[in-house]
């Protein structure tokens, strides 16, 4: 059996978000600088303490230029990773290996106003010009399958069909997200909670996905500081100790368009990642007090619940029915800050909420939350993190 070398070795000690907005009117560079500076300050550290930098591969700001602006002069570890918590895994690995002491992760994008391939064809084309995802554009674009929303809709229809799920019932996921978002002052979308009727009456984005199934883009930045767990005790904030962290990829993986794998109504990489995540953390599903899953597309939340072992395959939508299990007093409070559906699609945002739950500072605080799960990358490479109170 592999030694659990990353368990309890590191802790998240600093978090920050810039203002999040539909159209923020700022450069991603300036967002990155503000987020990193404020996360370091939140941790009670000096910039000179930061000796590692990690980011998502798709983030546009090069660490060199970030360092020049914020004054990280002597970093000894820099790395790109997949999306969301996989970059934190890279940072935790470097710290546990003794390569560095304190790592900052940042994610900054103008996803509401500018460059992001949501339902925006021009952004999709721009990504193609950058050499990303050539296969997708080669075999999908000629037929008008031009947007990530469309790619996800293809999987969603098959998923609903295979399990005989009523598409309207998926609406409980955005309904509960809207309830959480309405309480979270940082969440840009949903000033008021919606009901299931609002969902079933809402416009189809790409049939069978509705507008309310798809997380909107947002402008903003966020940063997270990770350091050695033993050092975290003396810092300003209540530490969120990394109990477990894992990644997963699987057969015939693509970004959302995993159409060549045997079962397109499944997320095998989430299953692989989840099994490893619970194994390395040494806990069971029932030990999780609060969870943040990747809700870029609502049906994928149900699929993640199944693949992570919270319910049987095909029953993820039923698990969320009426919202009872996933509200703050339910068995598994889910996406308690409003998720990407309420806050806008940017990886790392759900990590911030997972940390707030450990600190006791969430706008929908789960009473006595001790163990907090966060997952990102549904429909592509999967990654996840389990945090605990110190």
């Amino acid at each position, binding site marked *: 059996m592999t030694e659990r070398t990353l368990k309890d070795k590191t802790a998240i000690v600093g978090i920050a978000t810039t203002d999040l907005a539909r159209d923020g009117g700022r450069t991603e560079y300036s967002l990155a600088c503000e987020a990193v500076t404020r996360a370091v300050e939140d941790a009670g550290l000096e910039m000179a303490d930061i000796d590692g930098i990690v980011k998502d591969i798709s983030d546009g700001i090069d660490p060199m230029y970030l360092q020049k602006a914020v004054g990280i002069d002597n970093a000894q570890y820099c790395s790109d990773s997949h999306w969301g918590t996989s970059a934190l895994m890279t940072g935790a690995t470097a710290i546990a290996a003794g390569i560095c002491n304190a790592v900052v992760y940042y994610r900054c994008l103008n996803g509401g106003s500018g460059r992001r391939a949501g339902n925006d064809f021009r952004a999709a084309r721009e990504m193609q010009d950058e050499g990303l995802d050539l296969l997708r554009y080669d075999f999908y674009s000629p037929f008008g399958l031009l947007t990530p929303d469309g790619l996800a809709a293809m999987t969603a229809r098959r998923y609903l069909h295979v399990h005989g799920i009523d598409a309207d019932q998926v609406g409980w996921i955005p309904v509960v997200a809207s309830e959480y978002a309405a309480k979270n002052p940082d969440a840009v979308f949903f000033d008021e909670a919606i009901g299931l009727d609002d969902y079933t009456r809402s416009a*189809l984005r790409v049939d069978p996905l509705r507008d309310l199934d798809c997380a909107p883009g947002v402008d903003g930045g966020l940063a997270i500081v990770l350091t050695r767990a033993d050092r975290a005790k003396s810092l300003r904030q209540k530490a969120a100790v990394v109990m477990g962290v894992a990644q997963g990829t699987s057969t015939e993986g693509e970004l959302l368009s995993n159409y060549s794998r045997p079962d*397109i109504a499944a997320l095998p990489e989430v299953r692989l990642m989840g099994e490893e995540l619970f194994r390395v953390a040494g806990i069971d599903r029932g030990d999780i007090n609060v969870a943040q899953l990747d809700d870029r597309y609502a049906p994928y939340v149900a699929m993640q619940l199944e693949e992570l072992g919270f319910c049987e395959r095909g029953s993820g939508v039923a698990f969320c029915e009426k919202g009872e299990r996933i509200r703050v007093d339910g068995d598994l409070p889910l996406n308690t800050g409003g998720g990407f559906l309420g806050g806008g699609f940017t990886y790392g945002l759900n990590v911030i909420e997972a940390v707030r739950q450990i600190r006791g500072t969430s706008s929908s605080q789960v009473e006595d939350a001790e163990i907090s799960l966060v997952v990102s990358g549904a429909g592509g490479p999967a990654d996840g993190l389990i945090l605990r109170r110190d």
Partner: protein
Amino acid sequence: MTTPGEPEAPTVPHPALWAVLYRSSTPFWEAVARHELSLQRCSGCKTWLMPPRPMCPRCQSAESEWVPVSGRGKIHSWVTYPESPHPAFEAPYSVILVELDEGVRLVSNPSGIAPEELEMDMPVEVVFEDVSDDFALYKFKRAG
């Protein structure tokens, strides 16, 4: 060149023309231009390789062949765009995922099947539509 009475050429290139950018798939599109559906298959272990790629993930052979396929299959899933994200496509339009009899899946468009008529596992067969002198698209109609 535009002749009188013809609509003006669209200023945004048709997405079909992007396909030629990716080298592994060039033989595929050359065959489609001849109105043939031909897929890449590993010469060693005979695994179908779709989308095309430089190596077989099952046996790591770099040798492959292009093999004509039946063009018959079933609808495995589909989506419908109620609004078009691109001027080349007039909404509403559907995109289908077809599982060929050989077990390989292809993204395509329905031909002569309205969005509301699409059904899971509907039998379909390939048809070809010329986009230009040297470029065609494959679509799927109800199997006869």
